[in-house]
């Protein structure tokens, strides 16, 4: 949009990746004089807000300086040799696919830091919290910005340790088990993924994603592609998560602190789907072609399974946990994303990328709201909240209730909000999958997926019915309504959900040319 010097852009991108890392180290050091604040805890939480804020500003400037007339072109690229022995290059760059994810990550982390500043997480020291949050941000941002397979793996692994500690130190009930499940599942997946990445790198002679994508799988034999896609796909599918490899997700979400849940759902899951689009589609198209129908099948099973699990949790007397319910709904939503990718068509992949962002915004908001609810009522158990008639949030805290209803309705895919377009495009893609994929099979998947949207609507409306509505009980004290800082943290998400719903072109205009190019043969 605005013209920014290329070397400034390069610097900004490098800063976005490295800045949080330096910030994390700085967070561990004692505060310099003059920045001590009221207490050490407050000072370090403020440090977190400052650093994530600076990163967000850098990311926004990056987005403004991004040449949106050529979103398929890699921009702000840096390419320096780091480990010649392994042929690892620090190759950074952004295009229309990675830019939205980069901004989303910077935004969500900033909102989390802001939220934690006013509502410090109970548990360990704020110092460690901020350091881990920043390390996590660095890893996620790096995942979306790097263009080297081994660097991608490094970034992919970087998020494990901070997320583990966030859950285990600041989490709720069952956190130890949940944290172990999270880290062991993801690590097993990603080590298998490493084998696939190495196979590609060794057989093709380079780890550079751009070069590999331009080759479009030509230097790789069919069997290499099939093995590599299987290995990498497993790693990414654990992260995404794809049914039946999702079982770590509900536990991790239930146990994680609010901020951890927001980042886990909003950003970490996207690393998996991003990998599918960025690595598998262009680099091993033949291998992906082989597995696409299976991926699509697993995806729709995930959609139905996630919805049914949510319906079961939302039932009266099921002792359903709201956070667990949203986690299962994530499994369903990510199913749509995977279905879109599996169609291997521009429509489907665009839909997948859109749904990715939409899910990040909406589910991030939902977890924030449920976290807020838990702070007020002390529970996320649906039965305990709703009791006999319903929690009557509309009556007790009308703004909170309204926001929750808004997020739920956005999540079920109401047209005009962000959740709608991605899932619709993914289903559209399945209506006419890429040449060579079985159309009847994908039509079936589309039908099942469409049925899944109905189920999603059903359980979301049940949740709204049980949490927001209900008999107004005069004796029950009113709950505190939305605080100022909560407004500050949540409003951007609401605004973007509405914005992306009303003007999807802003996002699709960025992704569409890049997707076309990825599918046709690499990035220039």
């Amino acid at each position, binding site marked *: 949009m605005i013209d920014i010097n290329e070397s400034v852009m390069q610097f900004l991108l490098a800063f976005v990746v490295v800045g949080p890392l330096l910030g994390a180290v700085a967070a561990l050091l004692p505060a310099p004089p003059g920045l001590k604040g009221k207490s050490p805890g407050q000072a370090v939480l403020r440090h977190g807000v400052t650093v994530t804020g600076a990163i967000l500003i850098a990311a926004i400037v990056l987005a403004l300086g991004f040449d949106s007339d050529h979103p398929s072109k890699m921009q702000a690229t840096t390419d320096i040799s*780091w480990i010649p022995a392994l042929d690892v290059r620090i190759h950074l760059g952004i295009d229309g696919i990675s830019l939205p994810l980069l901004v989303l990550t910077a935004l969500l982390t900033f909102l989390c830091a802001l939220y934690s500043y006013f509502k410090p997480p109970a548990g360990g020291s704020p110092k460690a919290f901020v350091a881990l949050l920043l390390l996590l941000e660095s890893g996620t941002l790096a995942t979306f910005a790097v263009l080297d397979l081994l660097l991608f793996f490094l970034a992919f692994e970087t998020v494990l340790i901070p997320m583990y500690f966030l859950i285990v130190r600041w989490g709720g009930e069952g956190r130890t088990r949940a944290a172990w499940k999270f880290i062991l599942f993801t690590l097993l997946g990603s*080590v298998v993924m490493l084998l696939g990445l190495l196979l590609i790198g060794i057989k093709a002679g380079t780890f550079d994603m751009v070069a590999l994508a331009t080759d479009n799988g030509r230097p790789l034999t069919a069997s290499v592609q099939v093995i590599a896609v299987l290995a990498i796909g497993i790693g990414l599918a654990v992260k995404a998560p794809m049914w039946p490899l999702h079982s770590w997700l509900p536990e991790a979400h239930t146990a994680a602190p609010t901020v951890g849940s927001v980042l886990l759902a909003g950003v970490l899951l996207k690393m998996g789907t991003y990998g599918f689009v960025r690595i598998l589609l262009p680099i091993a198209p033949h291998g992906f072609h082989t597995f696409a129908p299976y991926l699509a099948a697993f995806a729709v099973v995930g959609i139905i399974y996630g919805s049914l699990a949510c319906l079961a949790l939302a039932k009266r007397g099921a002792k359903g946990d709201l956070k667990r319910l949203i986690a299962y709904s994530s499994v369903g939503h990510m199913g749509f994303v995977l279905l879109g990718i599996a169609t291997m068509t521009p429509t489907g992949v665009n839909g997948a990328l859109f749904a990715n962002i939409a899910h990040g915004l909406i589910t991030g908001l939902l977890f924030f709201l449920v976290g807020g609810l838990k702070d007020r009522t002390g529970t996320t158990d649906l039965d305990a909240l709703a009791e006999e008639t319903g929690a009557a949030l509309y009556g007790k805290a009308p703004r909170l209730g309204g926001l929750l209803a808004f997020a739920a309705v956005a999540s079920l895919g109401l047209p005009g909000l962000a959740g709608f377009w991605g899932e619709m495009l993914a289903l559209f893609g399945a209506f006419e999958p890429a040449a060579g994929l079985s159309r009847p099979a994908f039509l079936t998947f589309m039908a099942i997926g469409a049925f899944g949207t109905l189920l999603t609507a059903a359980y979301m409306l049940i949740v709204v019915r049980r949490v927001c509505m209900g008999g107004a009980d005069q004796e029950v004290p009113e709950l505190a309504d939305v605080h100022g800082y909560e407004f500050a943290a949540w409003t951007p998400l609401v605004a973007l959900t509405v914005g992306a719903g009303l003007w999807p072109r802003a996002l699709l205009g960025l992704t569409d040319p890049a997707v076309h190019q990825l599918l046709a043969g690499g990035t220039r």
Partner: protein
Amino acid sequence: MSSQPLAESLVQSVDWLAVAPPLIAAVVALAVLVADLFLPEARKAVLGWVSVAGLALAALMLLPLLDGHRSTFCVDRATRACSYTADHFTLVIQFLVLGGALLAALLSVTNLKDDEQRVPAGEFWFLLLSSAAGAALLPASRDLATLIVALEVASLPAFALVGIRHGDKRSSEAALKFFLSSVTATAVSLMGVSFVYASTGTLYLTQVAQRLTHIDGQLHTLAQTGVVLTLVGFAFKTAAVPFHFWVPDTYVGAPLPVAAYLSVVGKAVGFSGLILVTVVAFPSYADVWGPALAVLAALTMTVGNVGALRQQATRAYSAVRLLAWSSVGQAGYLLVPIAAAGYAEDPQKAIGSTVAYALMYAAVNLGAFAVAALVGRSRALNRISDYRGLYATNPLTALLLAFFLLCLAGLPPGVIGLFAKVTVFSAAVDAGLGWLAVVMAVNVVIALFYYLQWTALLFRAPEGEPARHHVPAPLTAAIALTGVLGVALSGAPQLVLRFAATGLF
């Protein structure tokens, strides 16, 4: 051969510069032993610092050799039949051995001071330096006899080191266990060497390699048996399964710095010997030792990691036990590229992965042992549960230990650990050893569990009265040195990984 003029082969000119690193260590060892007789009790501490300086000097003497083309004790230069060669492989391993011994010596300075009554200082330093001299000689040896002699020079003092504590039953028992099993392994090795000699008629590795390709059909079985038996002695030193059973008890029984020494230098001796005999001497038998080492690697890492997993945090000496078992697991990773060399077109590149991994492992494992030595000073039982809340009392030490453990696990922020594992994986994938890579992948996940469990414990709130550990200067130096190495390598992994890209011989 026999037509060579006798005088020329007998009167050899010695390249003193080339042999300086092991020689200095040996000379200083003798000097310390003699000086011990004349020094008054109060000034025995000097011996420690003399030894540290000697090791540092020996390591410095590697600098003039950096071009890597020296060899000495040659019978015939034309066929490269030399007993001692200082090529790049030798230099890297010598650096690893001498550096490792130096760090172990730094740990020992404090340990001896704390344990004054029970450990005789002069003998201790003599034994440590002699063993280091042997270990530094081994990678340079290019004939089977020198190789076995170096192996023995490195091992025999180690037995004594393990059992050096007066009146410690556990210590003597560990030494005996270590001694008996090690001697058996060396004897088997020696028999293998004799078989190989019988079938080829030479001891020089390069000549063995040439002659093994066209030996008599009748001698084929003999040579094959010889190759396998020779490997046994070195596999024992590497602590590969099934030669690993001595490790946990020996590590617990030995003084902690000696355990650290064995875990790094002992292993370096084992795997550099293995590399020399497999890749240099027996390349034509790759179809025999390749699969054998692959199976050995898979077994070793699995047994080691499962053993480490089973350690209970509250059991006495569980920290050292865990490090011992984990070192068995790590030995498995070290063997993977050597096994891959049996399949690969370019075995040198695969070997480089082992060397790179060993360098990373040496730095961070010694770091972990240094912190264990620190905690062991105030908590003699050295249980893993004693590390709970270390961050509250010694934040920097706790952060460094966490870093070392994550490097061993191979997860960021331990970047160097991650990339060292990547090179090992890539050697396996490159050689088509997919199954071994998958076994290793599962092992990495198992290993993460116990490493991370320990790491997480460091940051938990301390139980009871937290006792701040006082850190003496030599320990500080050791922890700082390994810490700086680990962090520097994480920023610039190329420093060690470059060995994985180029030929070392």
